[in-house]
């Protein structure tokens, strides 16, 4: 299928300043995506508030705007550049939230800009905890018992019902900011308040804690023809309860038999299909170490920190391929850039094992609480 031929110029949103949970890995994926679009003959305009990035180099995109990543500036740029499409899926949560706002407020439609690589309803179904839970129940994928709350009192009430410990997951945040595990009422008061404050929509999911379960992630890609592949899976050595960014991670999984691998793979494909994602997606699972029971913990319908790891681990350039899918190409049309003879529609088989170990800044924050939890504290990582 030919590239959406009406797309001559695309505006790509970068990920902004380096913060915990959204750091240099997004420069990596953003740069890859920009080059990928240029390969397809598209004129690329890039906006990123962070000049300390490769993607903002003169040689990367055709035109670069180093401006704040806000609705106002985006609108100014769109007015001036008149792009045909907007690609926000390579700039982490920041870019995605921005695009959602522009779309929901009708600006993109008004200005004739096509949202690429994602759909607003998909993003909402993945990020809004209530919609996500409902969708999982609808497709028969298990989620931990939970309740959406907008007030602390609702959280406390629910915890009384299902029992402690519980996990607080704030909606529309990155790196698990503001959330955490609460082992008792006193802890829930602290974490609950911080979670509600951290969420841009004052919403949290209070969930039965499945801390201690195996934490397994899958990186999935889907295109407009519904072709789906798993790029790789990853096993967090640290179980559920420790943020994946703070966990030692191995790719591929090490302690899953083929049955468990396929159980979760089949689930991941079902999820990406139900969300109709066209591009990359990260799905996180909690797998009972003593049975085939599992829960879907989180879905990130975009390139993420894990996809950078998966890309490097497998050599499969997720951001590059996701960008091509966003402009209409299918996996069986996109040439595999490594072999140059086969297509991007395959699942990498590794003949090695990759290990990621986080790096913490506790040498700089001497008095910081070093206890790891659901809120990411690592500022970097090494991979071998």
């Amino acid at each position: 299928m030919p590239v959406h031929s009406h797309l001559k110029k695309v505006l790509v949103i970068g990920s902004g300043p380096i913060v915990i949970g959204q750091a240099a890995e997004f420069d990596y994926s953003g740069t890859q995506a920009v080059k990928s679009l240029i390969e397809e003959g598209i004129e690329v305009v890039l906006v990123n508030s962070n000049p300390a990035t490769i993607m903002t180099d003169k040689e990367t995109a055709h035109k670069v705007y180093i401006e704040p990543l806000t609705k106002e500036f985006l609108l100014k740029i769109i007015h001036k550049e008149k792009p045909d499409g907007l690609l926000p899926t390579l700039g982490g949560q920041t870019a995605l939230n921005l695009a959602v706002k522009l779309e929901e407020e009708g600006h993109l439609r008004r200005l004739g800009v096509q949202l690429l690589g994602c759909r607003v309803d998909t993003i909402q179904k993945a990020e809004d905890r209530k919609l996500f839970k409902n969708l999982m129940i609808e497709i028969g994928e298990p989620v931990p018992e939970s309740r959406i709350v907008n007030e602390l009192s609702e959280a406390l009430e629910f915890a009384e019902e299902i029992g402690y410990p519980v996990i607080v997951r704030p909606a529309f945040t990155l790196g698990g900011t503001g959330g955490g595990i609460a082992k008792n009422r006193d802890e829930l008061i602290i974490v609950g308040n911080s979670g509600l404050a951290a969420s841009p929509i004052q919403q949290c999911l209070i969930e039965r804690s499945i801390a201690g379960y195996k934490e397994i992630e899958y990186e999935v890609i889907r295109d407009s023809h519904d072709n789906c592949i798993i790029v790789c899976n990853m096993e967090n050595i640290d179980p559920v309860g420790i943020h994946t960014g703070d966990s030692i991670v191995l790719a591929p999984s090490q302690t899953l038999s083929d049955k468990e691998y396929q159980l979760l793979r089949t689930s991941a494909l079902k999820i990406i299909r139900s969300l109709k994602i066209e591009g990359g997606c990260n799905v996180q699972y909690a797998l009972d170490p003593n049975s085939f029971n599992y829960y879907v913990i989180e879905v990130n319908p975009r390139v993420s920190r894990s996809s950078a790891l998966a890309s490097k681990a497998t050599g499969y350039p997720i951001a590059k391929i996701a960008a091509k899918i966003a402009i209409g190409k299918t996996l069986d049309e996109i040439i595999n850039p490594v072999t140059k003879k086969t297509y991007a529609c395959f699942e990498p088989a590794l003949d090695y094992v990759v290990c990621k170990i986080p790096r913490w800044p506790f040498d700089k924050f001497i008095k910081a609480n070093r206890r790891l939890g659901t809120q990411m504290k690592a500022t970097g990582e090494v991979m071998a």
Partner: protein
Amino acid sequence: MKRIKLVLENGDEYSGESIGVDIDHSYSLGELVFNTSMTGYQEILSDPSYCDQMVVMTYPLIGNYGVNKDDFESLTPALKGLIVRECPAEGSNWRNEYSLRELLKRFKIPGIAGVDTRELTKKIRNNGVMKAALVPENFNSQNAQAVLSKVIGTDQISRVSTKNPIHFPGSGKRVILIDFGYKKNILRSLLVRGCDVVVVPWNASLELIQSYRPEGIVMSNGPGNPKDVVEVLPVIRELQKRYPMFSICMGHQLFALANGADTEKLKFGHRGGNHPVKDLRLGKVFMSSQNHGYAVTSNSIQNSELEITQININDNTVEGLRHKSLPAFSVQYHPEACPGPEDTGWLFDDFLKTIRN
């Protein structure tokens, strides 16, 4: 730590740790192949299609999750050796009952660890499949080459096939599963859909099969060269006229030969769980589990009664066929997975639909 040696037909030798049965005064000879699956070693080494083969696993850690009572694809493994980079002494998984090393010893399969499986794989890719032998460490090169000059027989199917029919009762449609070395999950895929299954030997006569009053026929996977069992082709031709038929792997190759097409040996085969198959009717690609050294020759189809329904998008080999007029179809890969992706289990549903109509 006991040592063992792997010797290749081209003279290369690899020394490693013996992780399987002791072969002190003997040897094991097989065709050297590689499999790229990262999980599923229990299913792989118990797949009868590996009869007379030595399997190199490209993934470097094999045995991580141990061995359990459920994941065997047959209860009598037929492979001649397992070659891995590293094999842990213990596995970690809730279903783990004993270690992979223990399994190899119990089933009297020789194994070697500590070899450069990446280099071996590249050799197989470059040279094509070749014979290899696992021999005691003190075997000298002359003796080793003597072993390697032995011919590997052509009777694999008759060795792995059931000797007598076996009935697996069910309340639904009666299906005959012709056993060329079937994998248990093919049977399970039928049983779970309510079928009443009778497994028959590879060379069952038309009369025997008809006596069971089948409503559909499934031809299974199996080891070796399809042209070694041409005596079954006339039976296939008669069966397909009378009953809906679904054939897998070896079955697919025999289905092709029976209908005027040809098969050929691939340079080093397809063995792994990530092979992309495109369905030409649906325009969609599925991931498949594969284990085959032979394939249907694409340009032999035009002179046959068959049409190509699916192809491998990596190398355009034939992955699916359908008879132009009869309700018979086949696939080269393993829709029953085990190990591997479950993307194409719907083929069993299609088969049952064909029976119902």
